[in-house]
């Protein structure tokens, strides 16, 4: 354990004029274009920006580390008086895991599934001979307790797959805290978690960082989260610093236009309009996987024509399973799906081409929803050919028309998905669904893998298309901000059952059933005091 722990307020990390290059397409590209960063002891700095802004690269550079295929071209990194650029690998290795720790985004992918959690938690400390196994384990149990993990004395003897995602993320924080480092780098630690779980993890991380006076870099693209965690916020874009300011000041009065645009995303809102013309209805559906594990219990949802019904709930609540029942991928055990008043055949293979054409689906991850070996034209063109029999010039014209609809230009025609950004890919997936000329589109978490600004673009596009073609959306999401932006009606689901369905204004205004209440007030707000207030209110 480091004995010469300095005072709060001393400069801990100073990075000057950092330039980092990345290698791709047989060339070096600039990722970070000359950035400065100063972090004091006990200070938490939030690094925010879209993906590709260089947040993670900068965060790793703070450890003196560059990913394979990246190199730190110039600049200086001084950590507590030690120059990390000049340091040998061995010197850096002695710092990493003891004085500088890293918490990765995906805890599930970062733990070794073959070892017990406690062994992994104390590994760095024991390995460097800072503590013996027993003291380290005792200390780890204390950390578990502070991080509010259940059964702190025994949870460490479990394996990674035996705890939940949120618990695993706290485990990783415990692992990082175990040597009481001077600096922790949090790389999107809550992005993969549900809102309700996210709150617990955030509280735990904030408390422990505060308690041990640890400095931290908190990398995220979620503004509301960073507002809770950071003392100072630095906004990044295309490898440049946009601005840096103290959190409250930044939230109250952002200077740069770009920062303002980040802030304004959450302002998107759609006025609700009720309708009784039901396009699709799900009646009393029970469904199970493998005939045994029942995941849906008596689900009833009505989806009015030309409107958006948002289905919200945490993961495991049966949202996506509902979508699978509608599409026929998972025939229900009982109950029915009615489309325009007619019952749809339960199984996919019994449905006619016509029925298939009218219900289309858009997936969460556009990466896996597009065949990487098919060009954009092939991807969009197939439904045209398949459902509408278009060929040759006619098909080509229609593809170009669709590309225009999704605000992409002709140059995308013969590109492959690998050459597109996340937002562009999602747009192509929307075009593929549109090509079928459907009445209903099921959107399964279509924006959750995207950055805020890109999200806004996609949501605007979906809203515009709805207006133009009177498309009905079933919008599955866990993001309340998205729900606000796009829905007319909301369905709240919990553990495979519908908690309530109603117009947006009804659901969003109290009184709420207990679960809706929990879900709604777990959504971070842009107020830096929100988390503190919430914790007080819950106690």
């Amino acid at each position, binding site marked *: 354990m480091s004995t010469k722990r300095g005072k709060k307020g001393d400069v801990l990390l100073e990075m000057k004029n950092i330039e980092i290059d990345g290698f791709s397409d047989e060339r070096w590209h600039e990722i970070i274009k000359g950035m400065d960063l100063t972090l004091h002891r006990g200070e938490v700095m939030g690094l925010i920006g879209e993906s590709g802004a260089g947040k993670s690269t900068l965060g790793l550079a703070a450890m003196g580390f560059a990913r394979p295929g990246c190199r730190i071209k110039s600049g200086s990194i001084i950590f507590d008086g030690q120059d990390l650029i000049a340091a040998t690998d061995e010197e850096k290795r002695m710092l990493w895991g003891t004085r500088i720790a890293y918490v990765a985004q995906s805890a599930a992918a970062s733990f070794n599934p073959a070892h017990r959690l406690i062994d992994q938690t104390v590994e760095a400390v024991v390995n460097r001979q800072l503590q013996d196994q027993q003291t380290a384990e005792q200390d780890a149990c204390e950390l578990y307790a502070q991080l509010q993990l259940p059964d702190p004395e025994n949870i460490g003897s479990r394996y990674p797959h035996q705890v939940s995602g949120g618990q695993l993320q706290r485990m990783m924080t415990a692992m990082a805290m175990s040597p009481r480092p001077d600096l922790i780098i949090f790389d999107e630690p809550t992005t993969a978690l549900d809102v309700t779980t996210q709150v617990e993890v955030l509280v735990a991380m904030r408390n422990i960082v505060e308690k041990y006076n640890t400095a931290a870099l908190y990398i995220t693209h979620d503004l509301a989260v960073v507002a809770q965690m950071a003392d100072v916020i630095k906004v990044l874009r295309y490898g440049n610093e946009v601005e840096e300011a103290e959190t409250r000041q930044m939230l109250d009065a952002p200077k740069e236009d770009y920062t303002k645009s980040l802030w304004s995303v959450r302002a998107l809102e759609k006025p609700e309009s009720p309708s009784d013309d039901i396009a699709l209805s799900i009646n009393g559906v029970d469904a199970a996987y493998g005939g045994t594990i029942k995941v849906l219990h008596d689900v009833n949802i009505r989806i009015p024509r030309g409107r958006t019904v948002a289905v919200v709930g945490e993961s495991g609540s049966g949202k996506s399973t509902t979508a699978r029942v509608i599409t026929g991928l998972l025939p229900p055990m009982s109950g029915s799906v009615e489309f325009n008043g007619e019952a749809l055949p339960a199984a996919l293979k019994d449905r006619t081409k016509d029925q298939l054409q009218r219900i289309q689906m858009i997936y969460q991850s556009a990466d896996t929803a597009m*065949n990487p070996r098919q060009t954009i034209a092939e991807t969009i063109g197939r439904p045209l050919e398949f459902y509408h029999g278009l060929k040759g010039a006619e098909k080509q014209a229609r593809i170009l028309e669709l590309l225009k609809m999704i*605000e992409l230009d002709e140059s995308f025609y013969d590109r492959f998905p690998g050459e597109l950004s996340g937002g562009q890919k999602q747009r192509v997936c929307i075009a593929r669904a549109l090509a079928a000329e459907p009445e209903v589109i099921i959107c399964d978490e279509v924006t959750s893998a995207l950055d805020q600004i890109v999200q806004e673009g996609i949501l605007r596009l979906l809203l515009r298309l709805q207006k133009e073609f009177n498309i009905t959306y079933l919008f599955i999401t866990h993001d309340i901000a998205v729900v606000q932006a796009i829905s007319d009606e909301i369905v709240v689901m919990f553990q495979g059952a519908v908690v309530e369905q109603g117009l947006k204004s009804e659901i969003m205004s109290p009184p709420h059933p207990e679960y809706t209440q929990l879900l709604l007030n777990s959504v971070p707000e842009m107020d830096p005091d929100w988390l503190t207030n919430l914790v007080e209110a819950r106690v």
Partner: protein
Amino acid sequence: MTDTSKAYSAAAEVGQIRERRSRWKIMKIELKKAPYSAWFGLIVIACYCFVAIFAPLLAPHGEAEIFKIPFAPWGGEHVFGTDQIGRDIFSRLIYGARNTMGIALATTLTSFAIGGGLGLAAAITGGWTDQLLSRCVDVLMAIPGLIFALMLLTIFGSSILSLIMIIAVLDSTRVFRLTRSVAISVVVMEYVEAAKLRGEKLPWIMRREILPNIMPPLVAEFGLRFSFVFLTIAALSFLGLGIQPPTADWGSMVRDNASMIQFAKYDLTAAMTPMIPAGAIALLTVAVNFVVDWFLHKTSGLNDEH
């Protein structure tokens, strides 16, 4: 189109526009970077193919033409001498390239058609179809290949067709396993689900959605299987149940002339005679493996600096 969306859809997000290279250009660049071993392999394979295709033009004598002197020494009219009934060894070597490689290629293609097709079908449909096919393959794999092939060949007779079919079926078990396992990781992709939801039929999903995404391991396996099939045919011919005379074939040439090794102390060149077809088999196998190694290395992303 609003202002924000316009700004968004512009090149802003892409960052840079990539030049589209033609396939030919990409191939040229890759070849330039290829290691010497790959070059060696490619050149050897090219030579073999050349010889196989133009065999009748290159060979000085006919495939089964019999001359007066059996076991003629090297040199003179017969470069590598003649065999036990007086056929020109050099000509038979050249024709052998055609027969052995042609049959090996046909067999490998057949085994990929069978194993690949069934493997894909098993991966996509899953359930009991998958179980049934996989268990059948397990049973086939449990029986030692060469012995099973010998048995089947004695039952069905050693015609070229039965030779191809028997080896292809036995070999397709490995292709089935590979195809099934790589396809299963692609089948769970959402684009395959999207195709199913669209109402696409099985052949389309197999050919258009899955096959292009599993090509690299299959191509590599094709090279390896080709080598193995080639060796199996040579081994069967050596044992006398493979390609039947008078068709020239390297495996049977080794067997026919094997006894000449005993004469090494009297005539070294004569003893070398059976080594030439054996060497030809070995060289091609090595060459194919070099190329496959390079290809695997390239497609599996092992070519990063480490």
